[in-house]
């Protein structure tokens, strides 16, 4: 069945080259088919011929990295640059660090831009304050939290300053990354399949060592501590997403392997997600929060959300953050990446016990991440929500669609209740 083996190899190559222009894929496949035919004609065995060529994954990665970097180097589009560097990151350590730098630069640039836009809608939530003690505080308060006392210095000048600073940071970041990519493309290193195979395989061997697990856990812990100390702008979720992506890719996995897939039955998933989300929030408001209030002596502190009351613009702005950062971002991080990773580490306990342990630990982490601004009762409430979302995830065959929708819907209900002034603790 040598024809089958070769056809399978080329089918996989074709799939792996997806994203390149169809004409380019046809040319690449035709050339490699010609090579295989020629080698077989000279008496080679199919397995040996294919082994000497390499795996479709490795060959496709070389073509994609080169092409992506070429397009990214030429074009101005940030999206092209991100996808180009992402491909580069999958074949080279240098690319991985370039991607980290690119994302960090993009995040800082976006923060400046968001600050400028926020000034238009919620002027009191962004600015440079001179505090009573003489210190300065540059704050962007999109999430609930009190704003600094003192005199705000920039006023509406923060709009042009924010846009200019964002543009400068983006320009510097993209120039640095493009030139690094161009240098790497020109270097002979890129041409060496064994070297790339060596980097990839040595990385993939390294991820199975305890040392890697320690580094990964340390990185996660460091991000949470940094967030607690306000060292991370806005939220640590994007950074955790990046760490999760790196961890998955190094282990040969993708987001779809931990549940980020299109549902087969959209209607069912949406209905379950919406019902679950509404039920979660209703249960929280009517049952768990009063219980927590009795346990801790006071309810979760939601006074920081007061700015939402009667403020439609803020409600709409918050919905954007809710569905991107909270629903998608947090579900991908907590239920997708962290829950599965903790279950990996707890693997020796057996599958059920490992996932149960992971569910509890990640829910505690989820609660702790939300503790600021809502206090210990808030941590308990969010931890409980995290547990419910984790159960939804596991009950839906570890697919993320339902928890994402439920998370978004439950937050939406809470924000709407606050907006209407009907949420307990906010009037």
């Amino acid at each position, binding site marked *: 069945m040598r024809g089958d083996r070769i056809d399978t190899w080329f089918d996989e190559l074709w799939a792996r080259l997806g994203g390149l222009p169809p004409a380019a894929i046809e040319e690449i496949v035709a*050339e490699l088919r010609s090579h295989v035919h020629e080698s077989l004609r000279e008496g080679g065995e199919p397995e040996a011929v294919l082994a000497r060529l390499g795996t479709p994954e490795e060959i496709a990665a070389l073509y994609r990295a*080169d092409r992506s970097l*070429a397009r990214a180097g030429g074009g101005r589009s940030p999206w092209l640059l991100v996808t180009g560097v992402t491909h580069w990151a999958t074949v080279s350590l240098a690319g991985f660090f370039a991607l980290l730098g690119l994302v960090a630069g993009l995040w800082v640039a976006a923060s400046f831009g968001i600050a400028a836009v926020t000034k238009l809608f919620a002027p009191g939530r962004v600015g440079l304050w001179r505090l009573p003690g003489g210190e300065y505080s540059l704050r962007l308060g999109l999430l609930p939290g009190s704003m600094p006392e003192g005199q705000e210095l920039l006023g509406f000048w923060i709009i042009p300053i924010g846009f200019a600073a964002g543009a400068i940071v983006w320009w510097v970041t993209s120039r640095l990354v493009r030139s690094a990519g161009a240098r790497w493309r020109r270097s002979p290193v890129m041409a060496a399949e*064994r070297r790339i195979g060596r980097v990839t395989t040595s990385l993939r061997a390294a991820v199975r060592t305890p040392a890697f697990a320690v580094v990964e856990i340390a990185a996660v812990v460091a991000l949470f501590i940094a967030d607690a100390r306000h060292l991370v702008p806005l939220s640590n979720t994007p950074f955790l997403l990046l760490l999760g992506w790196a961890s998955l890719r190094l282990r040969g996995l993708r987001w779809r392997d931990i549940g980020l897939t299109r549902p087969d039955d959209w209607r069912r998933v949406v209905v379950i997600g919406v019902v679950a989300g509404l039920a979660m929030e209703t249960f929280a408001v009517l049952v768990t929060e009063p219980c927590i209030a009795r346990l801790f002596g006071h309810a979760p502190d939601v006074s920081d959300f007061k700015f939402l009351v009667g403020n439609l613009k803020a409600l709409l702005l918050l919905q954007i953050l809710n569905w991107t950062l909270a629903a998608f971002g947090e579900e991908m991080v907590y239920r997708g990446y962290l829950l*599965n990773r903790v279950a990996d580490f707890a693997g020796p306990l057996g599958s059920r016990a490992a996932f149960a342990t992971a569910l509890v630990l990640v829910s505690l982490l989820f609660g702790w991440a939300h503790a600021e601004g809502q206090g210990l009762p808030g941590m308990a409430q969010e931890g409980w929500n995290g547990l419910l979302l984790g159960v939804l995830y596991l009950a839906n065959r570890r697919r993320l669609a339902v928890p994402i929708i439920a998370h978004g819907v439950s937050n939406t209900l809470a924000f709407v209740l606050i907006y209407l002034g009907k949420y307990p603790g906010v009037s």
Partner: protein
Amino acid sequence: MPKEGRDRERGAGRGAAGDAVDPIARWEVQVRKGSLDLAILASLWSGRLYGLEILKRIESDSSLLVPEGTVYPLLARLREEGWVEAEWVEAEAGHPRKYYRLTAGGRRHVVKMAHAWSRFAASLDRLLVPVRKEDR
């Protein structure tokens, strides 16, 4: 539980085999990789060749072992940079072959690369004189 088995072990096998070889062989592999561009362009100096011929020319005229899968993406890049051009030719074998030849710019480029390579080798030779004396 996400399957660790999704990792492709074939690459690990090749990598592991490479790592088991002595350090000189490993270093030689790195040096060879650094000269692959030049090797491919030089192999085309006398006339057009298709992929498999390029591999054989390099292996027979030098001691360079070229990983087969890398040559094609490399040729694609050299073509994009304008050093080579390609054309499909119907072969007697019944399937078409993609032939590569140096462009005018490519011929000038490989001459410059060859000079640079000679300068590099000469510099290194000067550095190695005391080492070789010691070795006798």
